[in-house]
């Protein structure tokens, strides 16, 4: 933890199972924001999230920002003829009526220049910027390094 401000920010969103909460901005529903724990802060972290567009107009995720990374970027893992690379994505389309997932092996937020170790069970805020809907800040839950996604019980919600 480098700064008290960051520590306060982290503890503010450090609630259990926050990856299972739903946040909305306009016609967009944001769910399952999670990340993987890191060993130290020298390697990049990752951000995954699901966005559902319940409206009738297309939108797009055009940027991410977070106090835990100096250089967060949108990436897409592409496997072409058996070789995986991670080109930058200018934006992630969020078409009307569809759910788009930033998920392992596809689109992801690449958190470069981590300012702190991401510890399992902790959390950090991320601000998602959409082309039309604008900005929304949601808590991201840090899961284990082996995690494949949050375990959310959606029955009855």
């Amino acid at each position, binding site marked *: 933890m480098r700064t008290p401000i960051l520590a306060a920010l982290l503890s503010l969103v450090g609630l259990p199972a926050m990856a299972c909460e739903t946040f909305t901005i306009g016609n967009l529903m944001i769910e399952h924001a999670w990340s993987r724990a890191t*060993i130290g802060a020298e*390697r*990049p972290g990752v951000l995954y999230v699901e966005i559902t567009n319940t409206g009738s107009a297309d939108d797009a995720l055009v940027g991410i920002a977070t106090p835990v990374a100096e250089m967060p970027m949108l990436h*897409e893992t592409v496997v*072409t003829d058996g070789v995986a*690379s*991670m080109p930058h994505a200018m*934006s992630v389309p969020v*078409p009307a009526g569809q759910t788009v997932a930033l998920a*392992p092996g596809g689109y992801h937020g690449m958190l470069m220049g981590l300012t702190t170790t991401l510890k399992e069970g902790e959390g950090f805020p991320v601000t998602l910027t959409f082309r039309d809907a604008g900005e929304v800040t949601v808590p991201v839950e840090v899961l284990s390094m082996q995690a494949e996604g949050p375990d959310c019980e959606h029955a009855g919600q």
Partner: protein
Amino acid sequence: MRLTTFQKALWAAAGLVCLAYGTWVLVADPATPPRAEAAFRPVFSLSDAEGRIRTEADFAGKHLLVFFGFTSCPDVCPTTLSEVAQVMDDLGSDADKVQPIFISVDPVRDRRLGLAAYTSAFHPAILGLAGDEVQTRAAAESFHIYFERQDDPAAPDGYTMSHSPALYLIGPDGDWLRQFAYGTPASDILNDLRSRL
């Protein structure tokens, strides 16, 4: 799925970005491993975390699950290593017949950042190997896999790596048996292994 003109434009733009990178990556023509070829025996000679040279001969009699990657890879590599960890747990008493190996394609940086701490965070059985430039190239060629350093001003240290993300299965006599494509569920890998052990 009906696409609006704007969506089409977005996808086209995204496609162009991928294409540009894809072309870059494809220039060197990644070789596909030959199928069902008994004579194909990958070899390697690489340092472990303690600096000891390890070769395929050290693991004669065991099945090897070999993955090439780098530890500054937050998306693809953790997914595969997590699956390998799951397989090792689910193998139970047969786990000692399988040696999972993580070969760094970014050996200098991975040695600096700590290879063992990374692999053991997924499973203590995973052996991390990081050779020098020449040894790493030789191992990759022997497995018929491709990796390349890609300059990226935004990335840590100014570069990232593209690499073959598949998992390779080597038999107890050193024969290349098969590969599991990236994203193969742990249960499929487990079933395949169980049928061989």
